[in-house]
């Protein structure tokens, strides 16, 4: 096994990780500020991917599509916040789970209605179509490297937004005391809509970026949603920093597990069994990681005092 192969797999893990971070950031912000579990977050990811693929297909420009997916997801997020989500903040988690589960059904059916039953495909933009040489002799897809770059840039942007701007100050205030910032004259309703739309836009961006790596279809959001939940639980719900650390951890664990566990079991099991045992364990690895983290730190790696 060469160093180049190892680096390539590590980069794959990091790429999955930053993708998960874009999803998890919105989830964790919405939970931290509004105390809401949003199962429909995966639908916003799907919305971003569909609009990106559709606009890119119609105009021929990937970048226009990506911007369109970003905006469409933000708009869809703002819309469901105003129509449905804002009625759920005062409800218990059970009602939130059910209502956002209903939103998944609605979104999936609408997507099927608007875009048809067949998956859409999105091409990697020509500029990023090539490969970048890696130290050690291998090479790596420029597009995947660009995803890592965008994800890290978004993480930095989010950090600046939360620590340096007025909106960020209100978000932090909202996390520590919801009633108080309302009493201080901040328009909470607008703040909540803005936070929700921000999270939705990040999910839509993730959807658009991933759309070029896999087919864009109904149901693509839910597997990512579950992984994003694992991420925010490991990171500590409400913590954006925790989401970043946990997303990379989950991405790398999952990718390396899938590559190396079957090989590891191959050392002492016959090949067919090794593949089956190894791949099943690899699929379970991140959930084992999560159970392990929760067993020792029931509130995640970076606990936040959420009301």
């Amino acid at each position, binding site marked *: 096994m060469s160093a180049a192969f190892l680096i390539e797999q590590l980069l794959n893990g990091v790429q999955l990780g930053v993708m998960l971070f874009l999803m998890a950031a919105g989830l964790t912000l919405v939970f931290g500020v509004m105390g809401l579990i949003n199962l429909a977050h995966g639908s916003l990811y799907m919305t971003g991917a569909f609009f990106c693929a559709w606009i890119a297909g119609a105009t021929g420009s990937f970048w226009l599509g990506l911007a369109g997916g970003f905006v469409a997801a933000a708009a869809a997020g703002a819309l469901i916040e105003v129509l449905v989500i804002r009625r759920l903040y005062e409800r218990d988690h059970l009602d939130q789970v059910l*209502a956002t589960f209903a939103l*998944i059904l609605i979104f*999936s059916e609408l997507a099927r*209605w608007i875009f048809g039953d067949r998956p859409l495909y999105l091409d990697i933009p020509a500029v990023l179509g090539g490969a970048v040489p890696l130290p050690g002799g291998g090479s790596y897809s420029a597009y995947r490297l660009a995803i890592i770059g965008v994800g890290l840039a978004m993480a930095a942007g989010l950090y600046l937004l939360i620590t340096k701007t007025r909106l960020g100050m209100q978000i932090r205030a909202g996390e520590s005391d919801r009633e108080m910032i309302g009493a201080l004259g901040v328009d909470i309703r607008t703040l909540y809509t803005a936070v929700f739309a921000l999270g939705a836009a990040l999910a839509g961006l993730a959807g658009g970026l991933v759309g070029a790596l896999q087919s864009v279809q109904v149901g693509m959001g839910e597997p990512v949603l*579950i992984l994003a939940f694992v991420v925010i639980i490991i990171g500590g719900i409400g913590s954006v920093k925790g989401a970043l650390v946990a997303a990379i951890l989950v991405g790398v664990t999952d990718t390396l597990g899938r590559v190396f566990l079957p090989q590891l079991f191959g050392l002492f099991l016959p090949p067919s069994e090794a593949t089956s045992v190894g791949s099943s364990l690899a699929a*379970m690895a991140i959930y084992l990681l999560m*159970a392990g983290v*929760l067993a020792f730190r*029931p509130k995640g790696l970076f606990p936040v005092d959420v009301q």
Partner: protein
Amino acid sequence: MGPEHRRELIVNAVLALALLAAPLIAVTLDEPFYVTLASRVAILALAGVGLNLALGAGGMVSFGHAAFFGLGGYVAGIAALHAFEDSHFIAWPLEIGGSEHMLVIWGIAMAASAAAALAIGAISLRTTGVYFIMITLAFAQMIYYFAVSLPTYGGEDGLSIYLRATLPLVDADDGLTFFLVCYALLAAALYFSHRLIGARFGAALLCARMNPERLATLGIAPYPVKLTAFVLSAMMTGLAGALYAELNGFVSPAMLSWQRSGEIIIFVILGGVGRLFGPVAGAALFILLESFLGGWTDRWQLVLGLILLAVVLFARGGVVGLLAGRARHD
């Protein structure tokens, strides 16, 4: 007995009779499809009654009950496979083969669910709130992926049950008989839940949900009470899973999926959380909507989503709450 309590009893009786009457009428009209539909309602209601014990009475929002539902299903599937092939599940140190006796399968399904719930609950109950929801989901996903990667038992494609297991005295292959068996088990589970909630254990469980500190002050540790309820809840859902696999003649990882967990939660909430007959009403309404909307429009999921949304936003207390008035214990 207040008027609301009496109304809820009437609603319950009407539900129980309607579910019993529907397949009997269907048989006389020679419409076997509706007998199967009624069996599905009874089985899914049983799964919901199980979850209702954890969720309604104990306040444990498990988003992973499909794990037990699917486990029960796989017990039925694996037992049938080995009985059919005359092979062994475990060859050493004990020889354990398949089984074609439904009673044996039920017992193993419940035992397997209990064992899984004991392990999952013991870890999950260390957390509360949203963490509990998510960790139960994570455990169910683990079992889901485990089943997907089991090539011996069908992997992603699942497992067909070619011969339905048998019961002593009655012919379980007959649609109506099988329905009556499921109905009887549902009734037994409802009676058991009712007696359990009315007993000292039930009082402790309700208190563990509403005020765990107070329960602890009274000298009863909340943790074992909740864990016991979680295990009992999983056993009922596991039994439902075994029946469901027998009904469909098929078991696949879809029975373990998180969507299935969501559906079981929907039965409970749609019917009315904590109401004895809530899951029966919820499962019946869900299955009816699914089959009739499905016949009427291809976009039935859209309509179903809108109805669910309306129930959550405007009809708190679910169907039973709507019919029988607000719950007294909120």
